[in-house]
């Protein structure tokens, strides 16, 4: 029987790792994800997880050790956040280019300067071009589930790409919620053993990894990463279906909430989706035709699903905790690109909010709604809006 208990997202991530039975975990502690490697090292020390736990002196080393282990052909896991993920940046490209199915749990946190340990998505959003798959969890259960799904997708022969699973700093990492820990046997059935076919260490079958590619081959090698990202779309759907069959919890790349007949749809990711759903309920009570959508998968970008979503609304209001300078948020760029060539498309309004752990309240969402309504009524509106900005101190 699955165990129902309460735990923080950090513990949920550690449990997911334990259930996935990685052979190597290399990690460096960083707020807010420190508890993930702490808990895993406990599992290893207690003999509950038969794995090598490598203590390293930096995140660059942590991911490098993971690359080495994964290249040797074993399931590999690490956890990090913020500056730690940024320090891994160089090696993230290498892991994707070498097609190593490493999984990282990311406690989504802001980037310096100024130093700030609280939640936004700037850390993992900034890594969107590395080739890694990206999942975002709304709650602690999703943190656990999506890590298992991430392993499943990453290791699929049609994909073979590393994956990161983000969950919001403190809002999730340090808050206990009810979580169901699935049975080990069912997880074993779902994931199976990782059997490396392209990356392994075997003296009887020598191969060279991390090779040099001259101009005649580099482009093709990069294209295969592109192609693997495209393939991942289908593989993720399959994994979601199988996950639902085995564990009973349903996932979708883009999850919709009360979107039928909606004029305005709020789109967001991570824990903010919970707040937004409540806000939508609150508006519906007032008779406003408003819905919500949540991106569970950000890379590969769910272009098809976003186009379907766009058919349902007159205005898409994007709520994002990250900044792409000169553009707005990263989602604004992605949504614009997904919809730009459609004959009919909704207006897109972008909202930057909740940076560095700033609470996102109903009052903030009212501010966003007012601007979205302007767009709906054909009035002039700003494409990019910083919500809850304390203009009085500027």
């Amino acid at each position, binding site marked *: 029987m699955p165990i129902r208990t309460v735990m923080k997202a950090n513990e949920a991530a550690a449990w997911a790792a334990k259930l996935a039975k990685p052979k190597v975990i290399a990690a460096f502690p960083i707020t807010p994800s420190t508890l993930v490697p702490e808990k895993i090292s406990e599992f290893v020390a207690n003999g509950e997880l038969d794995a090598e736990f490598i203590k390293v002196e930096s995140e660059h080393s942590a991911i490098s050790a993971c690359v080495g282990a994964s290249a040797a052909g074993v399931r590999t896991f690490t956890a990090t956040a913020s500056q730690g993920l940024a320090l891994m940046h160089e090696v993230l490209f290498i892991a994707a*280019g*070498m*097609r*190593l199915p490493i999984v990282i749990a990311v406690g989504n946190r802001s980037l310096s300067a100024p130093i700030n340990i609280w939640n936004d998505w700037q850390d993992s959003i900034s890594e969107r071009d590395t080739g890694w798959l990206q999942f975002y969890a709304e709650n602690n259960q999703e943190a656990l589930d999506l890590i298992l799904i991430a392993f499943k997708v990453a290791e699929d022969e049609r994909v*073979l790409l590393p994956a990161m699973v983000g969950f919001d700093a403190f809002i999730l990492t340090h808050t206990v919620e009810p979580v169901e820990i699935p049975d080990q046997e069912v997880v074993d059935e779902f994931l199976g053993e990782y059997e490396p076919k*392209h*990356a392994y260490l075997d003296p009887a079958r*020598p*191969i*060279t*990894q991390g*090779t040099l*590619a001259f101009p005649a*081959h580099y482009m*093709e*090698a990069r294209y*295969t990463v592109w192609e*693997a990202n495209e393939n991942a779309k289908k593989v993720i759907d399959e994994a979601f279906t199988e996950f639902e069959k085995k564990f009973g919890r349903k996932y979708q790349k883009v999850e919709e909430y009360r979107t039928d007949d909606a004029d305005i749809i709020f789109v967001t990711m991570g824990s903010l989706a919970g707040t937004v759903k409540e806000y939508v309920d609150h508006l519906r009570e007032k008779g406003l035709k408003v819905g919500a959508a949540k991106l569970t998968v950000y890379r590969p970008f769910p272009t098809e699903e976003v186009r379907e979503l766009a058919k349902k609304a007159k205005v898409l209001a994007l709520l994002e905790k990250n900044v792409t300078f000169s553009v707005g948020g990263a989602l604004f760029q992605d949504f614009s690109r997904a919809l730009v060539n459609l004959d009919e498309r909704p207006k897109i309004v972008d909202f930057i909010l909740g940076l560095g752990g700033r609470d996102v309240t109903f009052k903030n969402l009212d501010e966003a709604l007012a601007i979205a309504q302007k767009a709906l009524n054909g009035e002039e509106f700003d494409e990019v809006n910083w919500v809850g900005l304390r203009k009085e101190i500027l």
Partner: protein
Amino acid sequence: MAESPFKADIERVQKEYSEKMTPGAVATIPGSSVINKTGSWRVFMPEFNRDKCTRCFLCYIYCPEPAIYLDEESYPVFDYDYCKGCGICANECPVDAIVMVREVK
């Protein structure tokens, strides 16, 4: 100069590498060192004096590339496609049958 003993390998590797991109650009068969000619790195080249040579094979053993092979009479032959000009052979030769000279390209 005697024909390179790697000729068959070179052809095999060239053929297989021109075929398919592997996931992660993994080189699945050994031998890419054979098609990547490292001789272009060279600044100094070994100049061989056959009259002085005692056929002790030290140069053959020490060459890290290995760019030295032996002809029918067991004299060293230098494969300048792969000799990177490190000078180890000249350093090891006990009778100074090899000297490094600046290569003018």
